[in-house]
Protein backbone atom coordinates (compact mmCIF):
# COMPACT_ATOMS: atom_id res chain seq x y z
CA UNK A 1 0.00 0.00 0.00
CA UNK A 2 2.62 2.50 1.08
CA UNK A 3 4.49 2.21 -2.21
CA UNK A 4 1.35 2.83 -4.21
CA UNK A 5 0.60 6.35 -3.05
CA UNK A 6 2.00 9.18 -5.08
CA UNK A 7 1.68 11.74 -2.32
CA UNK A 8 3.11 10.44 0.90
CA UNK A 9 1.72 13.38 2.83
CA UNK A 10 -1.43 15.23 1.90
CA UNK A 11 -3.73 17.74 3.53
CA UNK A 12 -7.22 18.89 2.59
CA UNK A 13 -8.58 22.20 3.78
CA UNK A 14 -6.19 22.31 6.71
CA UNK A 15 -7.21 25.18 8.99
CA UNK A 16 -6.09 26.37 12.39
CA UNK A 17 -7.63 29.14 14.41
CA UNK A 18 -6.16 30.64 17.56
CA UNK A 19 -8.86 32.47 19.49
CA UNK A 20 -10.38 34.00 16.38
CA UNK A 21 -7.10 34.52 14.55
CA UNK A 22 -6.75 32.19 11.58
CA UNK A 23 -3.10 31.17 11.36
CA UNK A 24 -3.62 28.51 8.67
CA UNK A 25 -6.50 28.67 6.24
CA UNK A 26 -7.68 25.93 3.89
CA UNK A 27 -4.25 24.58 3.02
CA UNK A 28 -4.15 21.75 0.49
CA UNK A 29 -0.61 20.49 0.59
CA UNK A 30 0.68 17.55 -1.39
CA UNK A 31 4.12 16.16 -0.77
CA UNK A 32 5.36 13.71 -3.37
CA UNK A 33 7.17 10.65 -2.03
CA UNK A 34 10.94 10.74 -2.44
CA UNK A 35 11.25 14.47 -3.03
CA UNK A 36 12.57 17.44 -1.12
CA UNK A 37 9.72 19.83 -0.69
CA UNK A 38 10.30 23.31 0.69
CA UNK A 39 7.79 25.54 2.40
CA UNK A 40 8.65 29.21 2.38
CA UNK A 41 6.89 32.40 3.34
CA UNK A 42 7.31 35.57 5.36
CA UNK A 43 7.53 35.53 9.17
CA UNK A 44 4.22 34.62 10.73
CA UNK A 45 2.90 33.04 7.54
CA UNK A 46 1.94 29.89 9.42
CA UNK A 47 4.75 27.53 8.41
CA UNK A 48 5.56 26.28 11.89
CA UNK A 49 1.86 25.99 12.60
CA UNK A 50 1.47 23.73 9.57
CA UNK A 51 4.32 21.58 10.91
CA UNK A 52 2.66 21.44 14.30
CA UNK A 53 -0.57 20.35 12.65
CA UNK A 54 1.12 17.69 10.52
CA UNK A 55 2.89 16.21 13.52
CA UNK A 56 -0.19 16.52 15.74
CA UNK A 57 1.36 18.94 18.19
CA UNK A 58 -1.69 21.05 17.38
CA UNK A 59 -5.20 19.87 16.61
CA UNK A 60 -6.60 21.35 13.39
CA UNK A 61 -9.76 23.41 13.58
CA UNK A 62 -10.81 21.92 10.26
CA UNK A 63 -9.41 19.82 7.45
CA UNK A 64 -7.81 16.43 7.10
CA UNK A 65 -4.33 14.96 6.95
CA UNK A 66 -3.35 11.76 5.15
CA UNK A 67 -0.02 10.04 5.52
CA UNK A 68 0.86 7.09 3.31
CA UNK A 69 -2.78 6.92 2.31
CA UNK A 70 -4.12 6.66 5.84
CA UNK A 71 -5.85 9.39 7.73
CA UNK A 72 -3.85 10.69 10.70
CA UNK A 73 -5.99 13.73 11.51
CA UNK A 74 -6.80 12.36 14.94
CA UNK A 75 -3.54 10.55 15.72
CA UNK A 76 -1.38 11.48 18.72
CA UNK A 77 2.01 13.14 18.25
CA UNK A 78 4.04 10.21 19.57
CA UNK A 79 2.13 7.89 17.24
CA UNK A 80 2.85 9.76 14.01
CA UNK A 81 6.52 9.58 14.97
CA UNK A 82 6.16 5.81 15.25
CA UNK A 83 4.63 5.74 11.77
CA UNK A 84 7.79 7.33 10.41
CA UNK A 85 6.82 11.00 10.22
CA UNK A 86 9.48 12.71 12.32
CA UNK A 87 10.06 16.40 12.84
CA UNK A 88 12.81 18.70 13.98
CA UNK A 89 12.18 22.03 15.66
CA UNK A 90 12.78 25.63 14.65
CA UNK A 91 14.86 26.11 17.78
CA UNK A 92 17.40 23.34 17.95
CA UNK A 93 15.99 20.55 20.09
CA UNK A 94 18.50 18.39 21.90
CA UNK A 95 18.55 16.98 25.42
CA UNK A 96 21.10 19.45 26.82
CA UNK A 97 22.29 17.60 29.94
CA UNK A 98 22.59 14.23 28.25
CA UNK A 99 25.74 13.41 26.36
CA UNK A 100 25.82 13.53 22.59
CA UNK A 101 25.86 9.73 22.52
CA UNK A 102 22.94 9.48 24.94
CA UNK A 103 20.93 11.88 22.80
CA UNK A 104 21.08 9.51 19.86
CA UNK A 105 20.58 6.48 22.07
CA UNK A 106 17.26 7.84 23.32
CA UNK A 107 15.97 7.65 19.76
CA UNK A 108 17.38 4.15 19.22
CA UNK A 109 16.13 2.89 22.57
CA UNK A 110 12.43 2.88 21.79
CA UNK A 111 12.69 -0.07 19.46
CA UNK A 112 14.27 -2.23 22.15
CA UNK A 113 10.92 -2.17 23.89
CA UNK A 114 12.49 -1.78 27.33
CA UNK A 115 11.67 1.85 27.88
CA UNK A 116 9.33 1.11 30.78
CA UNK A 117 11.78 -1.26 32.48
CA UNK A 118 12.60 0.63 35.66
CA UNK A 119 14.11 -2.40 37.39
CA UNK A 120 16.91 -2.96 34.88
CA UNK A 121 20.28 -1.29 34.71
CA UNK A 122 20.83 1.30 32.02
CA UNK A 123 23.86 -0.78 31.05
CA UNK A 124 21.45 -2.75 28.84
CA UNK A 125 21.50 0.29 26.57
CA UNK A 126 25.20 -0.14 25.83
CA UNK A 127 24.26 -2.52 23.04
CA UNK A 128 23.09 0.55 21.13
CA UNK A 129 26.42 2.34 21.31
CA UNK A 130 27.82 0.98 18.09
CA UNK A 131 24.84 2.11 16.05
CA UNK A 132 24.82 5.47 17.85
CA UNK A 133 28.51 6.06 17.11
CA UNK A 134 27.90 5.21 13.45
CA UNK A 135 25.06 7.74 13.24
CA UNK A 136 27.19 10.44 14.85
CA UNK A 137 30.06 9.74 12.50
CA UNK A 138 27.64 9.90 9.61
CA UNK A 139 26.70 13.51 10.39
CA UNK A 140 30.31 14.44 11.11
CA UNK A 141 30.24 14.75 14.92
CA UNK A 142 31.67 11.36 15.82
CA UNK A 143 34.48 12.88 17.88
CA UNK A 144 32.10 14.81 20.13
CA UNK A 145 30.20 11.81 21.48
CA UNK A 146 31.28 12.27 25.11
CA UNK A 147 30.37 15.96 25.38
CA UNK A 148 27.19 17.17 26.96
CA UNK A 149 24.88 18.25 24.17
CA UNK A 150 24.64 21.71 25.75
CA UNK A 151 28.38 22.19 25.17
CA UNK A 152 28.22 21.61 21.42
CA UNK A 153 28.54 24.62 19.11
CA UNK A 154 25.20 25.55 17.54
CA UNK A 155 25.92 24.08 14.11
CA UNK A 156 26.89 20.76 15.67
CA UNK A 157 23.68 20.75 17.68
CA UNK A 158 21.82 20.89 14.40
CA UNK A 159 23.83 17.92 13.17
CA UNK A 160 23.07 16.07 16.41
CA UNK A 161 19.41 16.78 15.99
CA UNK A 162 19.50 15.31 12.50
CA UNK A 163 21.42 12.25 13.69
CA UNK A 164 18.82 11.73 16.43
CA UNK A 165 16.01 12.06 13.93
CA UNK A 166 17.70 9.66 11.51
CA UNK A 167 18.07 7.11 14.29
CA UNK A 168 14.34 6.55 13.98
CA UNK A 169 14.77 5.67 10.30
CA UNK A 170 11.94 8.00 9.32
CA UNK A 171 10.06 7.86 6.04
CA UNK A 172 9.40 11.57 6.10
CA UNK A 173 11.57 14.20 7.72
CA UNK A 174 10.05 17.53 8.61
CA UNK A 175 12.77 20.12 9.15
CA UNK A 176 11.79 23.52 10.53
CA UNK A 177 14.43 26.03 9.43
CA UNK A 178 17.43 23.71 9.64
CA UNK A 179 19.78 26.56 8.65
CA UNK A 180 18.51 29.14 11.13
CA UNK A 181 21.35 30.62 13.15
CA UNK A 182 24.07 28.77 11.24
CA UNK A 183 27.25 30.29 9.86
CA UNK A 184 28.30 30.01 6.25
CA UNK A 185 30.41 26.90 6.70
CA UNK A 186 27.75 25.05 8.68
CA UNK A 187 25.13 25.86 6.06
CA UNK A 188 27.19 24.14 3.41
CA UNK A 189 27.73 21.12 5.62
CA UNK A 190 24.13 20.74 6.79
CA UNK A 191 22.71 21.23 3.32
CA UNK A 192 25.01 18.54 1.94
CA UNK A 193 23.85 16.36 4.81
CA UNK A 194 20.18 16.96 4.01
CA UNK A 195 20.76 16.13 0.37
CA UNK A 196 22.45 12.91 1.37
CA UNK A 197 19.86 11.75 3.91
CA UNK A 198 17.04 12.64 1.53
CA UNK A 199 18.01 9.67 -0.65
CA UNK A 200 15.24 7.13 -0.28
CA UNK A 201 13.24 9.47 1.94
CA UNK A 202 10.91 12.40 1.71
CA UNK A 203 11.89 15.75 3.18
CA UNK A 204 9.57 18.63 3.89
CA UNK A 205 11.43 21.68 5.10
CA UNK A 206 10.74 25.22 6.09
CA UNK A 207 13.64 27.47 5.16
CA UNK A 208 14.28 31.17 4.77
CA UNK A 209 17.66 30.79 3.07
CA UNK A 210 16.74 31.05 -0.60
CA UNK A 211 19.95 29.70 -2.04
CA UNK A 212 19.52 26.56 0.06
CA UNK A 213 15.91 26.27 -1.06
CA UNK A 214 16.91 26.78 -4.68
CA UNK A 215 19.64 24.21 -4.46
CA UNK A 216 17.87 21.47 -2.56
CA UNK A 217 14.19 21.48 -3.30
CA UNK A 218 12.19 19.80 -6.03
CA UNK A 219 9.01 21.63 -5.19
CA UNK A 220 8.28 24.83 -3.30
CA UNK A 221 5.11 25.88 -1.59
CA UNK A 222 4.79 29.56 -0.72
CA UNK A 223 2.63 30.36 2.25
CA UNK A 224 1.32 33.80 3.06
CA UNK A 225 -1.05 34.75 5.87
CA UNK A 226 -1.92 31.11 6.34
CA UNK A 227 -2.79 30.42 2.72
CA UNK A 228 -0.93 28.87 -0.18
CA UNK A 229 0.13 31.65 -2.50
CA UNK A 230 2.03 29.68 -5.10
CA UNK A 231 3.49 26.25 -5.70
CA UNK A 232 5.91 24.71 -8.15
CA UNK A 233 9.61 24.29 -8.90
CA UNK A 234 11.98 27.08 -7.83
CA UNK A 235 12.40 28.61 -11.27
CA UNK A 236 8.66 29.05 -11.64
CA UNK A 237 7.85 30.21 -8.14
CA UNK A 238 10.69 32.72 -7.94
CA UNK A 239 9.35 34.52 -11.03
CA UNK A 240 5.79 34.63 -9.74
CA UNK A 241 4.81 38.28 -9.35
CA UNK A 242 2.71 37.66 -6.22
CA UNK A 243 5.59 35.84 -4.55
CA UNK A 244 8.01 38.64 -5.34
CA UNK A 245 5.57 41.14 -3.95
CA UNK A 246 4.97 39.14 -0.79
CA UNK A 247 8.69 39.00 -0.15
CA UNK A 248 9.47 42.58 -1.10
CA UNK A 249 6.49 43.66 0.98
CA UNK A 250 7.98 42.18 4.15
CA UNK A 251 11.60 42.93 3.39
CA UNK A 252 12.67 39.36 2.73
CA UNK A 253 15.16 38.69 -0.01
Amino acid at each position, binding site marked *: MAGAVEFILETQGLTKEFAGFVAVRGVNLQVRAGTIHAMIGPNGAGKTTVFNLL*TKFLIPTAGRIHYQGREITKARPADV*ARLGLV*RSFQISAVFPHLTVL*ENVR*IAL*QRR*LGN*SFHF*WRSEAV*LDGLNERAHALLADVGIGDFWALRAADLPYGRKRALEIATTLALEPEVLLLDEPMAGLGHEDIGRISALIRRVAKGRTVLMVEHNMSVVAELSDTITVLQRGEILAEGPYGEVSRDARVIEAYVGTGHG
Partner: protein
Amino acid sequence: MDRRLLPAIVLLGVALAAPFIVYPVFLMKVLCFALFACAFNLLIGYVGLVSFGHAAFFGGAAYITAYSVKVWGWPTEAGLLAGIAVAALLGLAFGAIAIRRQGIYFAMITLALSQMVFFFCLQAKFTGGEDGIQSIPRRPLFGVIDLKNELTLYYVVLAIVLSAFWLIYRTVHSPFGQVLKSIRENEPRAVSLGYRAEHYKLLAFVLSAALSGLAGSLKSVVFQLASLTDVQWQMSGEVILMTLVGGLGTIFGPVVGAVVVITMQNYLAPLGEWVLVIQGVIFVVVVLAFRRGIVGEISAWLSRLRA
Protein backbone atom coordinates in the same frame (compact mmCIF):
# COMPACT_ATOMS: atom_id res chain seq x y z
CA MET B 1 38.11 -1.49 46.04
CA ASP B 2 35.94 1.00 44.26
CA ARG B 3 36.41 4.29 46.09
CA ARG B 4 32.92 5.44 45.31
CA LEU B 5 31.61 2.65 47.52
CA LEU B 6 33.40 4.02 50.56
CA PRO B 7 30.78 6.57 51.68
CA ALA B 8 28.05 3.97 51.25
CA ILE B 9 29.95 1.50 53.43
CA VAL B 10 30.57 4.12 56.12
CA LEU B 11 26.89 5.07 56.09
CA LEU B 12 25.87 1.44 56.35
CA GLY B 13 28.18 1.01 59.35
CA VAL B 14 26.63 4.06 61.00
CA ALA B 15 23.13 2.76 60.31
CA LEU B 16 23.96 -0.66 61.79
CA ALA B 17 25.54 0.81 64.93
CA ALA B 18 23.07 3.64 65.44
CA PRO B 19 20.40 1.86 67.52
CA PHE B 20 22.99 1.23 70.24
CA ILE B 21 23.47 4.96 70.62
CA VAL B 22 20.18 6.55 69.61
CA TYR B 23 16.64 5.56 70.54
CA PRO B 24 15.56 3.01 67.85
CA VAL B 25 12.01 4.34 67.44
CA PHE B 26 13.41 7.75 66.62
CA LEU B 27 15.75 6.18 64.07
CA MET B 28 12.91 4.22 62.50
CA LYS B 29 10.86 7.39 62.24
CA VAL B 30 13.77 9.00 60.42
CA LEU B 31 14.03 6.00 58.08
CA CYS B 32 10.32 6.06 57.26
CA PHE B 33 10.40 9.75 56.46
CA ALA B 34 13.66 9.46 54.55
CA LEU B 35 11.95 6.87 52.36
CA PHE B 36 8.89 9.09 52.01
CA ALA B 37 11.08 12.03 50.96
CA CYS B 38 13.06 9.92 48.47
CA ALA B 39 9.83 8.62 46.94
CA PHE B 40 8.59 12.18 46.64
CA ASN B 41 11.91 13.25 45.16
CA LEU B 42 11.53 10.66 42.41
CA LEU B 43 8.68 12.80 41.16
CA ILE B 44 9.84 16.34 41.85
CA GLY B 45 13.52 15.76 41.16
CA TYR B 46 13.39 13.44 38.17
CA VAL B 47 10.08 14.25 36.50
CA GLY B 48 9.78 17.87 37.58
CA LEU B 49 6.25 17.53 38.96
CA VAL B 50 5.39 19.00 42.37
CA SER B 51 2.68 16.96 44.03
CA PHE B 52 0.86 18.48 46.95
CA GLY B 53 -1.06 15.33 47.69
CA HIS B 54 1.45 12.72 48.78
CA ALA B 55 -0.10 12.54 52.26
CA ALA B 56 -2.92 10.54 50.66
CA PHE B 57 -0.51 7.74 49.71
CA PHE B 58 1.43 7.84 52.96
CA GLY B 59 -1.63 8.03 55.19
CA GLY B 60 -3.86 5.84 53.03
CA ALA B 61 -1.34 3.02 53.14
CA ALA B 62 -0.84 3.51 56.88
CA TYR B 63 -4.57 2.97 57.47
CA ILE B 64 -4.75 -0.08 55.22
CA THR B 65 -1.80 -1.76 56.90
CA ALA B 66 -3.15 -0.87 60.33
CA TYR B 67 -6.61 -2.18 59.60
CA SER B 68 -5.61 -5.38 57.85
CA VAL B 69 -3.12 -6.31 60.56
CA LYS B 70 -5.24 -5.33 63.53
CA VAL B 71 -8.80 -6.17 62.46
CA TRP B 72 -8.30 -8.90 59.88
CA GLY B 73 -5.35 -10.36 61.68
CA TRP B 74 -3.11 -10.35 58.61
CA PRO B 75 0.60 -11.00 59.06
CA THR B 76 2.76 -7.86 58.97
CA GLU B 77 4.23 -8.54 55.53
CA ALA B 78 0.75 -8.94 54.02
CA GLY B 79 -0.31 -5.71 55.70
CA LEU B 80 2.66 -3.89 54.19
CA LEU B 81 1.92 -5.25 50.72
CA ALA B 82 -1.73 -4.26 51.02
CA GLY B 83 -0.67 -0.73 51.96
CA ILE B 84 1.67 -0.50 48.97
CA ALA B 85 -0.99 -1.84 46.61
CA VAL B 86 -3.62 0.61 47.74
CA ALA B 87 -1.16 3.50 47.54
CA ALA B 88 -0.23 2.45 44.00
CA LEU B 89 -3.90 2.31 42.99
CA LEU B 90 -4.53 5.71 44.52
CA GLY B 91 -1.47 6.94 42.64
CA LEU B 92 -2.85 5.54 39.41
CA ALA B 93 -6.16 7.33 39.99
CA PHE B 94 -4.53 10.64 40.97
CA GLY B 95 -2.07 10.37 38.12
CA ALA B 96 -4.70 9.56 35.51
CA ILE B 97 -6.50 12.77 36.46
CA ALA B 98 -3.55 15.10 37.06
CA ILE B 99 -0.65 13.96 34.87
CA ARG B 100 -1.47 16.10 31.84
CA ARG B 101 -1.34 19.26 33.93
CA GLN B 102 1.79 21.11 34.82
CA GLY B 103 3.18 23.34 37.53
CA ILE B 104 0.67 24.89 39.88
CA TYR B 105 -2.29 23.12 38.25
CA PHE B 106 -0.76 19.74 38.92
CA ALA B 107 -0.10 20.75 42.54
CA MET B 108 -3.69 22.02 42.97
CA ILE B 109 -5.30 18.90 41.54
CA THR B 110 -3.19 16.57 43.68
CA LEU B 111 -4.02 18.71 46.72
CA ALA B 112 -7.73 18.59 45.97
CA LEU B 113 -7.68 14.82 45.46
CA SER B 114 -5.74 14.24 48.65
CA GLN B 115 -8.25 16.39 50.57
CA MET B 116 -10.95 14.06 49.27
CA VAL B 117 -9.01 11.12 50.66
CA PHE B 118 -8.64 13.01 53.95
CA PHE B 119 -12.36 13.65 54.27
CA PHE B 120 -13.08 10.07 53.39
CA CYS B 121 -10.75 8.93 56.18
CA LEU B 122 -12.39 11.43 58.54
CA GLN B 123 -15.88 10.12 57.82
CA ALA B 124 -15.31 6.42 57.22
CA LYS B 125 -15.97 4.09 60.14
CA PHE B 126 -12.95 1.83 59.74
CA THR B 127 -10.37 4.56 60.32
CA GLY B 128 -11.54 5.22 63.87
CA GLY B 129 -12.10 8.95 63.30
CA GLU B 130 -10.12 11.23 65.62
CA ASP B 131 -8.67 8.28 67.50
CA GLY B 132 -7.22 6.60 64.44
CA ILE B 133 -6.30 2.93 64.59
CA GLN B 134 -4.26 2.31 67.70
CA SER B 135 -2.24 -0.52 69.27
CA ILE B 136 -1.63 -2.33 66.03
CA PRO B 137 -0.04 -5.66 66.97
CA ARG B 138 3.49 -6.25 65.70
CA ARG B 139 2.95 -9.71 64.32
CA PRO B 140 6.07 -11.73 63.56
CA LEU B 141 7.44 -11.20 60.06
CA PHE B 142 6.99 -14.33 57.90
CA GLY B 143 5.76 -15.94 61.11
CA VAL B 144 9.30 -16.18 62.51
CA ILE B 145 11.00 -12.81 62.93
CA ASP B 146 9.84 -11.30 66.21
CA LEU B 147 9.07 -7.63 65.63
CA LYS B 148 8.21 -7.00 69.28
CA ASN B 149 11.92 -6.72 69.85
CA GLU B 150 12.70 -3.12 69.01
CA LEU B 151 16.22 -3.83 67.79
CA THR B 152 15.00 -6.57 65.43
CA LEU B 153 12.27 -4.27 64.18
CA TYR B 154 14.88 -1.62 63.53
CA TYR B 155 16.99 -3.91 61.38
CA VAL B 156 13.94 -5.12 59.48
CA VAL B 157 12.86 -1.54 58.79
CA LEU B 158 16.43 -0.66 57.80
CA ALA B 159 16.59 -3.58 55.35
CA ILE B 160 13.26 -2.68 53.78
CA VAL B 161 14.11 1.00 53.47
CA LEU B 162 17.53 0.26 51.97
CA SER B 163 15.95 -2.07 49.41
CA ALA B 164 13.51 0.69 48.53
CA PHE B 165 16.41 3.14 48.17
CA TRP B 166 18.09 0.69 45.87
CA LEU B 167 14.93 0.43 43.77
CA ILE B 168 14.78 4.22 43.49
CA TYR B 169 18.42 4.35 42.48
CA ARG B 170 17.82 1.59 39.95
CA THR B 171 14.80 3.41 38.53
CA VAL B 172 16.75 6.62 38.06
CA HIS B 173 19.52 4.69 36.30
CA SER B 174 17.39 2.40 34.15
CA PRO B 175 16.22 2.51 30.53
CA PHE B 176 13.00 3.98 31.94
CA GLY B 177 14.97 6.57 33.93
CA GLN B 178 16.78 7.56 30.76
CA VAL B 179 13.50 8.29 28.98
CA LEU B 180 12.25 10.21 32.04
CA LYS B 181 15.36 12.36 31.90
CA SER B 182 14.82 13.11 28.23
CA ILE B 183 11.20 14.07 28.90
CA ARG B 184 12.24 16.40 31.70
CA GLU B 185 14.92 17.96 29.50
CA ASN B 186 12.79 18.52 26.43
CA GLU B 187 9.33 17.04 26.40
CA PRO B 188 8.26 18.04 22.86
CA ARG B 189 11.44 16.51 21.49
CA ALA B 190 10.90 13.26 23.40
CA VAL B 191 7.35 13.14 22.07
CA SER B 192 8.55 13.79 18.54
CA LEU B 193 10.80 10.75 18.93
CA GLY B 194 7.73 8.65 19.61
CA TYR B 195 7.57 8.56 23.40
CA ARG B 196 4.12 9.05 24.89
CA ALA B 197 5.27 11.32 27.67
CA GLU B 198 2.16 10.96 29.86
CA HIS B 199 2.64 7.22 30.16
CA TYR B 200 6.16 7.61 31.46
CA LYS B 201 5.15 10.32 33.90
CA LEU B 202 2.24 8.20 35.05
CA LEU B 203 4.48 5.22 35.79
CA ALA B 204 6.85 7.49 37.72
CA PHE B 205 3.91 8.85 39.67
CA VAL B 206 2.63 5.38 40.53
CA LEU B 207 6.11 4.27 41.65
CA SER B 208 6.42 7.38 43.79
CA ALA B 209 2.98 6.77 45.30
CA ALA B 210 3.69 3.09 45.99
CA LEU B 211 6.98 3.86 47.74
CA SER B 212 5.33 6.65 49.74
CA GLY B 213 2.75 4.05 50.71
CA LEU B 214 5.49 1.71 51.88
CA ALA B 215 6.84 4.54 54.04
CA GLY B 216 3.41 5.13 55.57
CA SER B 217 2.80 1.43 56.15
CA LEU B 218 6.15 1.03 57.89
CA LYS B 219 5.38 4.06 60.02
CA SER B 220 2.13 2.48 61.20
CA VAL B 221 3.99 -0.73 62.10
CA VAL B 222 6.68 1.17 64.01
CA PHE B 223 4.32 3.47 65.94
CA GLN B 224 1.49 0.90 66.05
CA LEU B 225 -0.73 3.77 65.01
CA ALA B 226 -2.41 5.19 61.93
CA SER B 227 -4.18 8.49 62.35
CA LEU B 228 -5.55 11.53 60.56
CA THR B 229 -2.18 13.28 60.91
CA ASP B 230 -0.83 10.84 58.32
CA VAL B 231 -3.32 11.85 55.61
CA GLN B 232 -3.52 15.53 56.44
CA TRP B 233 -2.24 18.12 53.97
CA GLN B 234 0.47 19.17 56.45
CA MET B 235 2.08 15.79 55.80
CA SER B 236 2.32 16.67 52.08
CA GLY B 237 3.91 19.96 53.06
CA GLU B 238 6.37 18.29 55.38
CA VAL B 239 7.70 15.97 52.69
CA ILE B 240 8.17 18.93 50.35
CA LEU B 241 10.09 20.69 53.12
CA MET B 242 12.36 17.70 53.71
CA THR B 243 13.11 17.33 50.02
CA LEU B 244 13.88 20.99 49.51
CA VAL B 245 16.00 21.30 52.65
CA GLY B 246 18.06 18.27 51.65
CA GLY B 247 18.28 19.08 47.96
CA LEU B 248 15.90 17.89 45.29
CA GLY B 249 17.11 15.78 42.43
CA THR B 250 20.02 14.45 44.51
CA ILE B 251 20.05 10.87 45.71
CA PHE B 252 20.99 11.59 49.34
CA GLY B 253 19.37 15.03 49.68
CA PRO B 254 15.94 13.87 50.81
CA VAL B 255 17.53 11.56 53.40
CA VAL B 256 19.48 14.44 54.90
CA GLY B 257 16.39 16.63 54.75
CA ALA B 258 14.36 14.02 56.63
CA VAL B 259 17.05 13.69 59.30
CA VAL B 260 17.18 17.46 59.78
CA VAL B 261 13.43 18.00 59.92
CA ILE B 262 12.63 15.01 62.14
CA THR B 263 15.48 15.82 64.54
CA MET B 264 14.30 19.38 64.75
CA GLN B 265 10.72 18.38 65.45
CA ASN B 266 11.93 15.99 68.09
CA TYR B 267 14.14 18.36 70.02
CA LEU B 268 11.95 21.40 69.58
CA ALA B 269 8.79 19.54 70.57
CA PRO B 270 8.64 21.26 73.99
CA LEU B 271 8.19 24.57 72.17
CA GLY B 272 4.79 23.39 70.91
CA GLU B 273 3.30 25.39 68.05
CA TRP B 274 6.54 27.32 67.65
CA VAL B 275 8.00 24.31 65.82
CA LEU B 276 5.78 25.19 62.87
CA VAL B 277 7.00 28.77 62.88
CA ILE B 278 10.63 27.64 63.00
CA GLN B 279 9.98 25.18 60.17
CA GLY B 280 8.42 27.96 58.16
CA VAL B 281 11.44 30.19 58.68
CA ILE B 282 13.81 27.40 57.64
CA PHE B 283 11.70 26.78 54.58
CA VAL B 284 11.91 30.42 53.55
CA VAL B 285 15.65 30.59 54.20
CA VAL B 286 16.31 27.46 52.14
CA VAL B 287 14.18 28.64 49.26
CA LEU B 288 15.85 32.04 49.24
CA ALA B 289 19.46 31.28 50.12
CA PHE B 290 20.21 27.58 49.55
CA ARG B 291 18.19 26.76 46.52
CA ARG B 292 20.03 23.53 45.94
CA GLY B 293 19.41 22.29 49.48
CA ILE B 294 22.05 21.03 51.90
CA VAL B 295 23.36 18.17 49.75
CA GLY B 296 23.03 20.18 46.56
CA GLU B 297 25.06 23.08 48.00
CA ILE B 298 27.72 20.78 49.41
CA SER B 299 28.22 18.92 46.15
CA ALA B 300 28.30 22.20 44.21
CA TRP B 301 30.92 23.45 46.69
CA LEU B 302 32.97 20.24 46.31
CA SER B 303 32.95 20.43 42.55
CA ARG B 304 34.06 24.07 42.73
CA LEU B 305 36.96 22.96 44.95
CA ARG B 306 37.98 20.33 42.45
CA ALA B 307 37.78 22.70 39.50
